[in-house]
């Protein structure tokens, strides 16, 4: 039997206010095997850890139970404390009496009773714990960044600057992402392209950075330090090594009826195209669905006009398999589809546009050459209405429950820019709240109102009705004046909610990274580990984790890079010792465990065993510790119970069940 010590944490009043910690200590001393129990204000503190160390050494403890906060919070802390006292760190079990007890129960007696039971379960488990030793695995010193927007570019640059090779995989023909579509940026109003393009160029030129555009991640296997990734390089139909980027092919291409993705479909592009002038790489791709040559076999003009002979209709998709130590997800966002918001007449009127479309209209390289005009008739608008929170902060299932965070600021920016350039245009903004936390943000908003005379109305718009004369009738409410508003507008701009790039779900599944109900990737800890996914070796950069503006995205990109660098800087990683093991005397060699192992960690070998005097050669399952991640799928598949999971063994879990049901 173990010599067990039980340490009950008050967590200030977080636990002690609802759980009678003294009682837990007293009850612990009644448990067989428990030779020491004490309570303390903050077990995780230096002094608390010292108490643990002292007790381990003085009482010669062989296992400890800490009744405290979630093991997800401080298991590592207490394992460290145990290890420093000479105890194997895996002889520590945590009874979660804070998140799972004191914080959710109000009645002291009830909470104490539950805390005692949770303590007993942990004691019962630790009684069966065995010292475990982590193994080692190697680290491939190369990082993968999925997504080539500002988040991905920044992360890649930071990692590359630290001396590690990085690959960027970008789905579209060019890196740049959403930021490349923006005209100006708040709150400084500097030109988006002017600050982004140098970064794109830098990334492209960086000796440590390798960019795969027009490519997608197809398969991910392996684990932290040793991922194997298949990247599909879609056929560009243009030889990157030959193309000079002269652009003649795009000019001569007769197929020019495809809506431009970059310009949000506001104008058309050719079948062979680069998304925008500053695209990197400056090599076009042929959209095979639009290309006449691919559709009919006739045409081939681009090939004829290309002096470099770069056009290659025969090119095929290429799968590149590469190993990485760390993966950063920077898949960014898109605007939500507005199908559910028919009342705003987005699909009925060309003059109802989204904010991102407005960005393109305002941009000199955009569909109107930077002139603010109505897309329906090309006339200059005199009256513009902005509607905030379209699909954000939504109570029902129509939109998103969250605040998209950037809309208040960019709307102020748009309003200000319009008023600045076209002082005769009236700008009205319907809002629920104006949210401006951020450096110089509120000042920026106030300038819009005070200096530029933008008309802010607190209230929502119920309906936008296109009138036969081409005007738009906006029906709204002014909540401050408590009155209905009917307003004629020439243009309506919708601040549509942003949502994670729809492809992120596929990528999260490949990476086994968890994702929340809104498809944002979940961070390992909301406060303390905001740029790490719970999946080791996977980091989060930019809006894939939650709505962010550019400065926040860039900071997070840097943070993700640092985490990745921290990982790549290690030569070896300690592996989780809670792996599966097969008892060779019980194993049937039936292969069922290998069938369910997601990591291919189980192989079989013919081995001579000595089963209580019977010597025979048997087919036995063997688990590769470095590959096993400890899910336990095999343990349940194994009918004889030969396969068991260290740290979560059958008997340990049963002991917990018994203790709870006792």
């Amino acid at each position, binding site marked *: 039997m173990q010599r067990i010590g039980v340490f009950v944490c008050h967590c200030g009043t977080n636990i002690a206010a609802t759980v009678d910690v003294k009682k837990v200590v007293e009850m612990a001393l009644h448990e067989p095997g428990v030779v020491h129990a004490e309570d303390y204000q903050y077990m995780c503190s230096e002094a608390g850890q010292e108490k643990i160390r002292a007790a381990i050494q003085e009482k010669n403890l062989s296992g400890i139970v800490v009744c405290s906060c*979630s093991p997800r919070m401080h298991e590592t802390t207490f394992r460290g404390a145990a290890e420093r006292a000479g105890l194997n760190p895996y002889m520590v079990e945590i009874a979660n009496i804070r998140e799972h007890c004191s914080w959710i*129960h109000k*009645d002291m007696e009830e909470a104490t009773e539950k805390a005692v039971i949770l303590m007993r*379960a942990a004691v019962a488990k630790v009684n069966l714990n065995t010292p475990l030793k982590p193994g080692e695995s190697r680290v491939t010193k190369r990082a993968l960044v999925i997504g080539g927007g500002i988040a991905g570019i920044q992360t890649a640059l930071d990692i590359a600057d630290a001396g590690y090779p990085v690959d960027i995989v970008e789905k579209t023909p060019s890196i740049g992402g959403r930021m490349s579509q923006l005209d100006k940026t708040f709150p400084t109003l500097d030109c988006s392209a002017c600050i982004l393009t140098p970064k794109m160029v830098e990334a492209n030129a960086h000796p440590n950075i390798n960019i795969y555009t027009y490519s997608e991640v197809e398969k991910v296997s392996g684990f932290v330090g040793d991922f194997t990734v298949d990247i599909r390089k879609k056929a560009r139909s243009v030889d990157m090594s030959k193309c000079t980027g002269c652009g003649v092919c795009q000019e001569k291409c007769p197929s020019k009826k495809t809506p431009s993705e970059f310009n949000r479909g506001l104008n058309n592009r050719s079948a062979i195209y680069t998304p925008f002038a500053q695209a990197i790489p400056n090599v076009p791709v042929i959209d095979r669905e639009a290309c006449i040559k691919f559709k009919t076999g006739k045409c081939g003009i681009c090939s004829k006009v290309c002096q470099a002979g770069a056009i290659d209709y025969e090119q095929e998709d290429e799968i590149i398999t590469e190993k990485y130590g760390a993966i950063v997800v920077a898949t960014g966002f898109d605007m939500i589809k507005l199908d559910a918001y028919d009342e705003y007449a987005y699909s009925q009127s060309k003059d109802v546009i989204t904010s991102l479309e407005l960005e393109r209209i305002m941009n000199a390289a955009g569909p109107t050459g930077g002139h603010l005009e109505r897309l329906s008739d090309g006339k200059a608008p005199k009256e513009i209405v902005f509607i905030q929170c379209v699909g954000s902060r939504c109570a029902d299932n129509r939109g998103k429950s969250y605040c998209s965070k950037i809309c208040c600021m960019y709307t102020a920016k748009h309003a200000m820019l319009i008023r600045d350039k076209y002082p005769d245009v009236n700008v009205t903004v319907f809002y629920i709240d104006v949210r401006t936390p951020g450096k110089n943000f509120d000042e920026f908003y106030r300038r819009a109102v005070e200096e530029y005379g933008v008309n802010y109305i607190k209230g929502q718009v119920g309906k936008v009705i296109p009138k036969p004369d081409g005007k738009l009738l906006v029906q709204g409410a002014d909540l401050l004046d408590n009155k209905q508003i009917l307003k004629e507008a020439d243009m309506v701009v919708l601040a549509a909610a942003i949502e994670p790039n729809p492809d992120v779900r596929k990528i999260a599944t490949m990476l*086994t990274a968890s994702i929340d109900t809104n498809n944002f990737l979940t961070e390992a800890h909301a406060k303390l580990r905001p740029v790490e996914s719970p999946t080791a070796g996977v980091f989060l950069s930019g809006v894939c984790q939650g709505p962010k503006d550019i400065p926040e995205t860039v900071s997070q990109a840097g943070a993700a890079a640092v985490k990745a660098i921290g990982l790549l800087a290690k030569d070896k990683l300690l592996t989780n010792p809670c792996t599966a093991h097969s008892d060779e005397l019980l194993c049937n060699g039936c292969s069922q465990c290998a069938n369910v192992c997601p990591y291919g960690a189980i192989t079989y070998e013919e081995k001579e065993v000595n089963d209580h005097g019977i010597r025979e050669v048997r087919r036995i399952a063997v688990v590769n510790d470095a590959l096993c991640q400890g899910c336990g799928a095999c343990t349940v598949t194994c009918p004889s119970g030969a396969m068991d999971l260290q740290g*979560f063994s059958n008997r340990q879990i049963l002991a917990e069940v018994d203790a709870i049901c006792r």
Partner: protein
Amino acid sequence: MSIEAKEEFRPKIVAFCCNWCSYAGADLAGSSRLSYSADIKIIRVPCSCRVNPMFILRAFERGADGVIICGCHPGDCHYTSGNYYARRRMTLLFSMLDYIGVESGRTRVEWVSAAEGVKFSQTMHEFVEKIQSLGKNVRLEDLRCRK
């Protein structure tokens, strides 16, 4: 019997929660102070696929009145496929329990992500209510384990 019946029924409920999603979901419920019944006791397992039918039967044998298994949403398993196996196993096991006459509400599987503290708390609420309505587990209990 009649005396026993009058006493307040406090069910014993075991919740197996996977480490990556549901246990974290339970933590979130905790830190968000979303209360649920103290009758629920959580056992942490690495993945819902670690839950052996033996554990569930053992809990019932020992007098548990309900057993709930929580894991990552299908598609979100930290180990890619664990919850898919768990889903099949539990479906078959629950079906068998139903077949031998155990009330089908005594067992449940729910997918709760790390971000779903509210769902965790609500699920536990509902489950406790269900078990309350079913009353004590007498069909699978081993009388020797009674106090």
